[in-house]
């Protein structure tokens, strides 16, 4: 399979905006909903996701093309991808603990949970299915991360505003958040057919 002919710049814009990993593909919802309570930790988690996404998509691309593919071990790809992601997150966790204990405390359980964030594995699998080249993989991983970060920042700011509003008791918290996400995703439908990703 050869890489599709998409300019990396188009792919960058497509992955940030038109096929946003959260609001167009609905991947990585769990931490999107639970962490978006306040802007500061959303910002921290968003930046961590950018880093992890870029690193793991590139690493997994290399693992797939230089190890799995030559040895005809493609059927092992899911377990290998997950292992690479887990290793990267583990290292990142140690680094954040060392460099910024405050951010480490704020992220708490959600940092290890990045391992099972479906956005991370999703991007890796998209890269594999669409058979992107190395540059395309790098740009797509970075763009998806930036898209995730922007979306969680926007949601966190909205939730801060909604927190003080008399929302019906049954809809407080996750309920109203899901409604906000739904309305945002409806807006993203306007981009349909705009930029091609595969």
């Amino acid at each position, binding site marked *: 399979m050869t890489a599709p002919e998409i300019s990396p710049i188009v792919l960058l814009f497509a992955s940030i905006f038109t096929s946003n990993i959260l609001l167009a593909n609905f991947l990585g919802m769990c931490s999107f909903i639970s962490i978006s309570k306040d802007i500061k930790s959303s910002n921290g988690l968003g930046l961590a996701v950018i880093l992890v996404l870029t690193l793991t998509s590139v690493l997994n691309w290399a693992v797939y093309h230089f190890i799995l593919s030559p040895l005809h071990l493609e059927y092992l790809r899911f377990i290998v991808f997950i292992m690479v992601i887990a290793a990267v997150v583990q290292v990142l966790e140690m680094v954040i603990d060392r460099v910024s204990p405050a951010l480490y405390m704020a992220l708490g359980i959600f940092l290890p949970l990045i391992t099972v964030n479906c956005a991370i594995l999703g991007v890796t699998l998209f890269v594999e299915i669409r058979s992107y080249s190395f540059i395309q993989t790098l740009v797509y991983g970075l763009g998806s991360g930036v898209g995730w970060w922007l979306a969680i920042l926007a949601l966190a700011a909205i939730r801060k505003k*909604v927190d003080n509003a008399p929302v019906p008791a049954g809809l407080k918290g996750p309920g109203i958040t899901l409604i906000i996400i739904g309305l945002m995703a409806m807006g993203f439908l306007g981009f349909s057919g705009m930029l091609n990703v595969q």
Partner: protein
Amino acid sequence: MKAIKNFLKQMAHNKALGGFGAPFETMYGILFGTSEVTLKAPHIRDNIEIKRFMSCAIIALLPSLAASIYYFGWHMLFLVAVAYVSGGIVEVIFAIVRKREIEEGFLVTGMIFPLVLPPTTPWWVVVIGMVFGVFFGKEVFGGTGRNIFNPALVGRLFITIAFPQMLSSSWQVPLSDVITSATPLSVYKTQGVLQDPLMMLLGNSQIGGGCMGETFRLGIILGGVFLMILKVSNFRTPLFYLGTVALFSFTANLFGISAIAPPWFQLLSGGLLFGAMFMATDPITSPMTNPGKIISAVVMGILTVLIRAFSGYNEGVMFSIILTNALNPIIDSIVLAQKFKVRSK
């Protein structure tokens, strides 16, 4: 007259009715306003509140409403009534459950909503859109003043997605019964043909005009300027929104990108003027800070031109306003954070 006044006042404060007193209180407010005067300081300087904001917006919408009746018939008034009734029912239910007054917000939403629909929309689609818009766009967020997204646009967006055939490909030609799938924007997109500017300004086109309220653009400009003079809407949003659209399409034309229409056509086609004057300026959903207003207007302008030129939809105003509504809180908080940084130095 006095009897009605006393009756409404009594009903509004009748303990036995509980929450059901709210409709009477609203009627009292609309008919008689407030006559209470403060005895000691602080005194209010001007009696401007939600009600007057809303009345100004409705006056500004009247030229568009009159034009839509002239071009598309009395059917339009029926749709406004349907929107008022269906939106009003949701509003009244929530007011009763919350034991609060009915806010007048839905009067403007119910007026704007039919104006941004195609002339051939059946009444039951108006009901679905209006109920969805008021319920999910406004009431679940806590009612008037709390909504993040413009309720009329939420409803319009929902029915655009739910009934694509009805909402984006059957347009009535003004002053006739002919239904066509062509509007100035779609004709430009498929054939690259421009329309006569004067005709677009007045709205009496030979092809499909567009949504009911957006065709008579002279009236929209008058209404928008009226709102800006009264300071009901902030002049920054329409100015920078329209300015960005013009500048962006002008630059794109310089580079020879033919998918993007020339600036004057962008400004005079589709719902851009209506959206910029009446929907983007919504004091609740637009940013509170002035730099924030400018940033969000520029984002809206860029999104509108891009969606119009490259997406599967012909019109991008609705999508770009909803998308920037979602971004406005973060824009505001970044602007505020920036301000504090400068002060503390």
